[in-house]
């Protein structure tokens, strides 16, 4: 009982000390927020960029079919369509205000009516294949939309589409969830690694080692302190996302979302302490934390959809714990699903335990004494 009370006191004191130090370091807090903040902007701008580019639509034919076709093109919702005269279209094209001029020429309606070839002419500024492919796909999209309205359609081949999931998630919404994982990882790594490395730099690690407490207890205290600050940041972003309507976890899935954030924070805090124990320099661990979390974020499919990426990247992602945390969040927030909940949680907990053992070994008095002696002898 006395041992238990003593352990509780040690953990409590370590938490209080580490959280107080963290709150005083506003620059560290700011540093950890800048990166995810930047990537939220990246995701927002990226989702706008891959979306609707501007094109000029010139309808030279006054027939019904031409106007139906023009309307189908607007309804296809692939581009921002400006319906203009030919000179205006040319001016917009020359000043790079539009990426293409789509012209429905004179005689188009008559040609379609007579079942003769009726080309839609596209002048494309094919700067890159992404834009070009959007253009290639959009016109047939409008053509099939147009023919679908016809009673006697010449296109009897139709697509019967079924979606695997009932929810539709917008691209930007979809990208917010990995950003929660990124924020949690960056905050956890930076805060815990800097706090631990700081102990080595100012040599306060000596006092910790000389204290008559077990190293495991000390590490648990440090992990909980890192976990509190990290999970708070994660919850704040979740709250902001919910207030802005980006994400809407509901019912029991809100609890799973909170569990995912808690497990990710725990992992990040433990990894940060491990990093601090191994590298022992604040500047080095700061750089490694930000760089490392960005890599983990990329490889877990942070800026896209993991399932769309090449097989080799998906194989690498299987070794990235962030993949499991992000998957857990996505399933809970978007699809109200517990798909692979056990596997995701097990990977996060298992990795945390492995890192905890590494911290205990790295902070073992004999190991630290060797490190400090080596540090003294190094010129």
């Amino acid at each position, binding site marked *: 009982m006395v041992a238990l009370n003593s352990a509780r006191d040690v953990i409590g004191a370590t938490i209080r000390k580490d959280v107080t130090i963290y709150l005083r370091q506003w*620059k560290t807090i700011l*540093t950890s927020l800048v*990166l995810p*903040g*930047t*990537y939220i*902007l*990246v995701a927002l701008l*990226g989702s706008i960029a*891959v*979306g609707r*580019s501007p094109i000029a639509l010139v309808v030279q034919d006054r027939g019904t079919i031409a106007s139906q076709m023009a309307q189908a093109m607007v309804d296809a919702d*692939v581009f921002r369509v400006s319906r203009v005269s030919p000179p205006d279209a040319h001016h917009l094209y020359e*000043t*790079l205000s539009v990426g293409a001029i789509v012209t429905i020429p004179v005689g188009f309606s008559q*040609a*379609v009516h*007579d*079942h003769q070839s*009726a080309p*839609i*002419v596209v002048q*494309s500024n*094919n*700067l*890159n*294949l992404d*834009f*070009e*492919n959007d253009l*290639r*796909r*959009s016109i*047939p*999209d409008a053509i*099939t939309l147009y023919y679908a309205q016809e009673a006697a359609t*010449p*296109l*009897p*081949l*139709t*697509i*019967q*589409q*079924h979606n*695997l*999931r009932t929810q*539709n*998630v*917008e*691209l930007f919404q*979809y990208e917010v969830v990995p950003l929660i994982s990124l924020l949690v990882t960056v905050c956890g790594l930076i805060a815990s690694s800097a706090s631990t490395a700081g102990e080595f730099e100012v040599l306060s690690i000596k006092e910790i080692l000389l204290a008559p407490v077990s190293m495991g207890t000390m590490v648990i205290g440090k992990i909980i302190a890192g976990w509190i600050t990290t999970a708070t940041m994660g919850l704040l972003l979740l709250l902001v996302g919910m207030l802005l309507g980006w994400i809407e976890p509901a019912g029991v899935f809100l609890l799973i979302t909170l569990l995912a954030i808690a497990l990710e924070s725990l992992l990040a805090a433990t990894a940060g302490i491990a990093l601090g124990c191994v590298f022992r320099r604040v500047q080095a661990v700061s*750089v490694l934390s930000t*760089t490392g979390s960005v890599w983990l974020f990329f490889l877990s*499919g942070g*800026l*896209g*959809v993991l*399932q*769309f990426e090449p097989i080799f990247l998906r194989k690498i992602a299987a070794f990235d714990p962030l993949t499991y945390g992000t998957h857990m969040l996505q399933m809970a927030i978007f699809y109200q699903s517990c798909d692979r909940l056990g596997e995701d949680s097990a990977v996060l907990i298992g990795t945390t335990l492995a890192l905890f053992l590494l911290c205990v070994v790295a902070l073992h008095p004999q190991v630290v004494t060797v490190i400090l002696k080596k540090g003294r002898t190094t010129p």
Partner: protein
Amino acid sequence: MSHEFFWQDQQQKQPAGLPTQVSAFLWLDVVVACLRKDMISALSERVTLFQMLILPINYTILLVLFALAGSAAPTTVVMVDHGPYAQRFYDAMQVSHSFRLQVESEGTAQAMLVRGDTVALVTIPGNFDQMVRRGQRVEIGLLVNNLNTDFTDDVTRGLRLAVTTFYQQQFPGKISIVTQIHDAHPQQTDYIPYLSVAVVVIGLLVGGLLQAGNAMARDWEQKTIKEVLLSPAPRSAIVVGKMLAAGTVSLLSALIVILFLVLVIHVSVLDWSGFLATILLLSAVSVAAGTLLGNLLKLRQTVTLLTRGISVPLFLLSGVFNPITYSTIGLVVLARLFPVHYAISLVQSTVLGQRTNILSPQGNALVLVGFLLLFVVCSCLVLRRGHSEQ
């Protein structure tokens, strides 16, 4: 005696007939001394150097992964019918630039979809050939893992393109509406090289800002700036010397990015001399901006924080994905206020031969030279102010 007077005094003591030459040599001496000192300091700060070298590669990978994720949907085709029309339809899907296709049995395909190994399952029904031959209604099954609407729309549109392509090829007279695309550029630039080219700019931007900003801020932090300012050296020589050192080091990160582009992404540079000149100009502008930033902020941590915070948004706001003029007027105006927009456009014109803003390459270069002069003059002015504060 203030250092300006001391410097003028020194000049007056030079033998008659030689003052300009001597002062030029002295000016160069100061430049070389500042260059050497900052180079040694930069090389001794390995963590900062590592950060500066690794960041542009990070950004390159970010953009490559971004482009890869949206390039083609992994799609499984279940061909219940193996007739010639079914095969032609499969071929039409392959040329639609939308899918990475794989043919599987229905059971395997379903399992792959559930596992997340494929995002769409297209079923060509058993009587496909017969129905198409008779001109009867046929339904192609599409089961899509609708993770998000953008990617789902791409899959649907890709399949519609395959339908029209199939009909245009097999029954040319049946669909009268066809598309005639005239491309402005003879070569097709893949999205990855297109995005990657612009990464050179952020490599130079981050490298220049970090290196020059930190070098300047270090002098302020460690108070060595006092000695520099109290010396009779002209401000311009100090600024130029520091800029040259930072520029040399930051060119290392540019070199790594260029090697990555050429060797890994296989970007072929259209105009090497123009590209190299652009690199030097961009490096000078970034370094000048970094020197100004370091002089203003005077703290390394703040310089690093601001550099990391502003460089990516600034880069992405400046027309990386498409010409900035495709965006809203607010973004266009914002982009034109910063040199990054002109830098991206200049790099794209020298590497890809594409015009991506309304200025000519010479026009973009001139704007950058203007920014360079502005930053250098501002740095000298800030140093002068810093001296009076000291």
